């Protein structure tokens, strides 16, 4: 057993899980509180990456890119809520899907018009391109930064949701929206803040991944499916559930990509294992989702009061 390999793979899984959490926490709140299915949540992820890349290209500062980019995505999220989502809360889920699918196309095309088809590389400062060495373990600095940033955001979100008045309203909204409205809370403002906050977190995930994979059109559409899986496994509307489910999926995905071919190789010829392993590891998270839906349809950690 190569322990160094296992530790780096666990770190890789953690990193993927935290990125998924950034996406899924906004998605689960929007889904849970407003009962709004936002397929275009992945577009915020893409827009975040492009905003950050553009600012980095002009200023040369990655930190500035992330901070201004976050503000930019927050504003875009607020505008989408104000002009589009708000009119649809009372509509059918199918309408949500249709409109937000249209939004995906609009955002993808806008990005194509503004930035072209070729994608955008985001240069990192040299110190982030390096590695941190602990004994025999060599970890890329930037991946550690993603883990650190992800954990920070998770902690802030935890404090926000569990210790503040806004958080109380969010939790109340996720459990019973009608009651919150009946108690005279300005639900419109709450929705606006949650939506924009969710967008900003998705944007942050996009900014963090782009220096690794580069920003490209439709980058959010691939990962949003996995984010929905996280939401369903964790329980709709539950930030805590989103956190645990995202960690679980991140680890399952990474560990199966690293060890499944060896495991399968024990039971079948190596050449079959080589082909079957990537296919199976891509399926595992969906198998898990199917199992959760079958045995615990409300998710693993549903918000209090939700049945």
């Amino acid at each position: 057993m190569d322990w160094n390999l296992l530790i780096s793979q666990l770190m890789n899984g953690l990193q993927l899980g935290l990125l998924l959490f950034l996406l899924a926490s906004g998605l689960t709140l929007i889904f849970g509180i407003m009962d709004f299915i936002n397929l275009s949540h992945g577009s915020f992820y893409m827009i975040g990456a492009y905003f950050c890349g553009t600012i980095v290209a002009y200023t040369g500062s990655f930190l500035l890119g992330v901070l201004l980019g976050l503000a930019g995505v927050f504003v875009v999220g607020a505008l989408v809520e104000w002009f589009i989502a708000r009119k649809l809360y009372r509509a059918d889920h199918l309408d949500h899907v249709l409109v937000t699918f249209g939004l995906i196309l609009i955002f993808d095309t806008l990005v194509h018009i503004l930035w072209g088809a070729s994608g955008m590389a985001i240069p990192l400062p040299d110190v982030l391109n390096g590695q941190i060495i602990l004994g025999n373990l060599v970890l890329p600095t930037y991946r550690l930064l993603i883990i650190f940033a992800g954990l920070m955001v998770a902690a802030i979100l935890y404090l926000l949701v569990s210790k503040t008045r806004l958080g109380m309203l969010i939790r109340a909204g996720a459990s019973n929206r009608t009651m919150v409205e009946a108690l005279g809370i300005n639900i419109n403002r709450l929705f606006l803040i949650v939506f924009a906050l969710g967008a900003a977190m998705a944007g942050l995930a996009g900014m963090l991944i782009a220096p690794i994979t580069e920003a490209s059109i439709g980058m959010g559409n691939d990962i949003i499916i996995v984010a929905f899986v996280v939401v369903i496994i964790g329980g709709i509307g539950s930030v805590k559930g989103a956190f645990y489910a995202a960690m679980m999926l991140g680890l399952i995905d990474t560990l199966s990509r690293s060890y499944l071919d060896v495991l399968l190789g024990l039971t079948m010829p190596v050449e079959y294992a080589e082909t079957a392993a990537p296919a199976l590891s891509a399926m595992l998270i969906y198998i898990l989702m199917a199992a959760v839906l079958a045995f615990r349809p409300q998710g693993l950690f549903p918000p209090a009061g939700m049945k």
Partner: protein
Amino acid sequence: MLVKLIRTTIIASAIIVTGMAQAASVKIGFVTTLTTPAGVIGEDMKNSVELALQHIGNKMGNLDVELIMEDDGFKPDVGKQKTDKLVKQDDVDFVAGYIWSHVLLASARSVLDADKFLISANAGPSQMAGSRCHKNFFSTSWQNDQTPMAMGEYLNQIGVKSIYIMSPNYAAGKDMANGVENTFKGEVKGKDLTKWGADAQLDFSAELAKAKASGAEAIFVFYPGKAGGAFIKQYQQAGLQGVMPLYTVFTVDSIALPKLQAAGLTGVLGSKNTQEWSPDMDNAANKRFVGDYLKKYGKYPSFYGAQAYDSIMLIKSAVEATAGNLKDKDALRKALMAADFDSVRGRYTYGNNHMPIQNFYLREVVEDSEGRWTTKIVSTVYKNHQDPHAKDCKM
């Protein structure tokens, strides 16, 4: 009676008119990927095809060229639909293009069953070179195995003892891995086939950690398009540069290099790859192609572009050799088989399976006189190389 006469006249003249319109032009359908992140490759091919048409004044012999571009969306099913449309609705004479092996495999029958010519400008799946070879299928690229075979041969030459292989999990990815395993004499310490397609895997952290733990001396990868840039960034961030030298095929090209340069990834300078073409090739056709491409689009063309440019020139040579008689398929086929045109890679010939028999070169990433990153030929690995699947072709 009069009505009948008028009707017959109208129909007859309609037939004559459409017949004339057909004879006055050669219709070429071109299938590539114009959307999704892989659209950058399609853009390069489109640019090159347009440049080729500009170079030949949009004429082949005395026929005008009518070009119809289609986007396969990086999906085999869409590629097949678009191909069907080109064949049935547009009734083109030639269908060219195809970046992806799985798209080509899905689309080939639609063209070949309709007795039209299919010219692959990139994809070279082993099936089309071997058991599924066809009299009307020609390639202006290579068979997938060949380029990695050349790389395996080069690794033997420099005495590399063990490698780790990474490649996407689709038709060409498997061919590439087989190609290098076919010629490399050392030990393959491990192999990863990663998820591919419109939602391809772009984060290779798990695989890179495995590669490193495997203790292999070098790493061989095939990641075309956007995945290539992502891979190289992560390779450098993982600190493998200098520890496990990187050898690639179809990964470090004119599409990836400007972005790698923008991201300041100097690690890729000096890295080696194999290819049948390079922008610095010293022949008149290539100088004109690369020079005008640089002038028109402000960047280097990639091998995808070079092969797309060649596909137009190959069609032109055949149309001219048959004096524009597109009905005579046998004569056209004979003319295509002769490959009597100045390819930008230099002249090549066709084998029994209509795959080029050509040289493969070792290329190195260098900075040109204007500070742009590009590739330069270092040496010739294979002279007049034929692919290993030709023997399975019954032609």
